[in-house]
């Protein structure tokens, strides 16, 4: 079983294209201003389709984290233990990402992280690193 990789849709394409070029992007509603938690086609607050893309600073704070010891599928067996974090980004959107080098710099709730990118099978995935 292969590792599940994102298959971009029309509304998420700018996000994944951004990742491929080393840029983290997020959306906000041009009508009501709501920052969207994850890329969407309609505003989660007012259902407008006027969603604008912006570039993120890539900085955020860990809302929660877990170290996975039991892989969900064989594709992740070679990676355990690995860390998954939920990150509240400074601009107000949220990201799930693996944390790189978590043994070197332990991650905690409230840790400041910088988002970078990691390429897997030709796809760039966001990856968090604890800020020194």
């Amino acid at each position, binding site marked *: 079983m292969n590792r*599940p990789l994102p298959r971009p849709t029309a509304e998420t394409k700018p996000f994944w294209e951004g990742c491929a070029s080393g840029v983290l992007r997020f959306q906000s509603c041009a009508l009501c201003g709501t920052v969207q*938690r*994850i890329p969407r086609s309609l505003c989660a607050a007012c259902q407008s389709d006027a969603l604008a893309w912006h570039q993120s600073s890539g900085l955020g704070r860990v809302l929660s984290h*877990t170290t996975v*010891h*039991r892989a969900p599928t064989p594709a992740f067996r070679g990676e355990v233990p*690995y860390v998954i974090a939920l990150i509240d980004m400074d601009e107000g959107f949220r990201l*799930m990402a693996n944390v790189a080098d978590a043994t070197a710099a332990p991650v905690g709730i409230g840790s400041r992280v910088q988002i970078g990118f990691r390429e897997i099978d030709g*796809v760039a995935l966001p990856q968090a690193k604890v800020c020194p």
Partner: protein
Amino acid sequence: MNAFVTGAFDTEVGELPGSSCMGLHAQAAIGAVADAGLKLPDIDGVLCAYSFTEPHLMLASVFCEYLGIHPGYSAAVQAGGASACIMIMQAAALVASGQCEHVLVVTGDNRLTGMSRDGAVAALAEVGHPQFERPFGISVPASYALVAQHYMHETGVTSEQLAAIAVEHRRHAGRHPKAHKREPITVEQVLASKMIATPLHMLDCCLISDGGAAVVVSSRAAARDCRGTPIEILGAGQGHTHEHIIAAPNLDDFGCKASSKAAFGRAGVACADIDVAEIYDSFTITLAVELESIGFFERGEAGIAAERGDLGLGGRLPCNTHGGLLSYGHSGAAGGMFHAVEAVHQLRGRAGARQVDGARLAFVHGDGGILSAHCSLVFGAH
């Protein structure tokens, strides 16, 4: 709500070699209909949920064909662990509105012997968001672990206190002759069990079992034709805030707050009136946040309450008296139905060694996804 549970039945549960999803459905259905003192042709509505081992777009039609019944209403409901409660709420609406007289609500799956453990875990992982969660190796336990880590950080609750929840569930299961796991466990054993996703250990997680369960929901008038003691559905409510954990409004409060408020409001009762609670316990953390969001305990108090014995037989709130998903068994949608069936046993005074003295009011709750879809029910002895 002008709706009554008139029949309830659960099959054997645990490792049942040779069982099948539809076979367990049929066994549970026949048992519940017989318990109500009805015959299969009396059933004019059927609700099914979903299956891991025999998935189908039209599970209720597959079931009716399998059993050889031809109801006037048939549909399947898919809301993960909330399915059983949501189906009972839907059945209540069908009989109260006069569209049906007796609705059979049936669940079952051979999740243990019908698929590998890896298969079960992998199937569950597919509930993660395909683009924004699954590429990072999320699983259902890992999602709940994110909730648990945050909860422990905010409240100071310890792994020992969460483990006390698992220990009490095993104690309950020890009093149920059919429970999948009955041998007592200790806090130390929970903490020493294999780490799945920090801070959740193997024994913080529910079982994977074969089993089936069903209830019959009847209108007020039709309930008089039934043999079994009817249990009134006094209130029901739902709460929905998100599907994927990344989209949860926050990690502190969940839809169980709204669902229980609606159910209590319709029933005209409050937390303090409840004699016995049967609440979805896919993980120890699941039960802790539900007990607190619903209002049975203050924030951060559920684990301490479990250590004190509050959730035990004779405690302040006997909870999951059959042993719950943690120790009685978890067979897909039937997992949530076991809670409802146990509430019926309790309110009929037929729970044997685990009977809560004088139980008149029961609270039943289901949670689907990652604390995503919630349905609460209040049952009353009639």
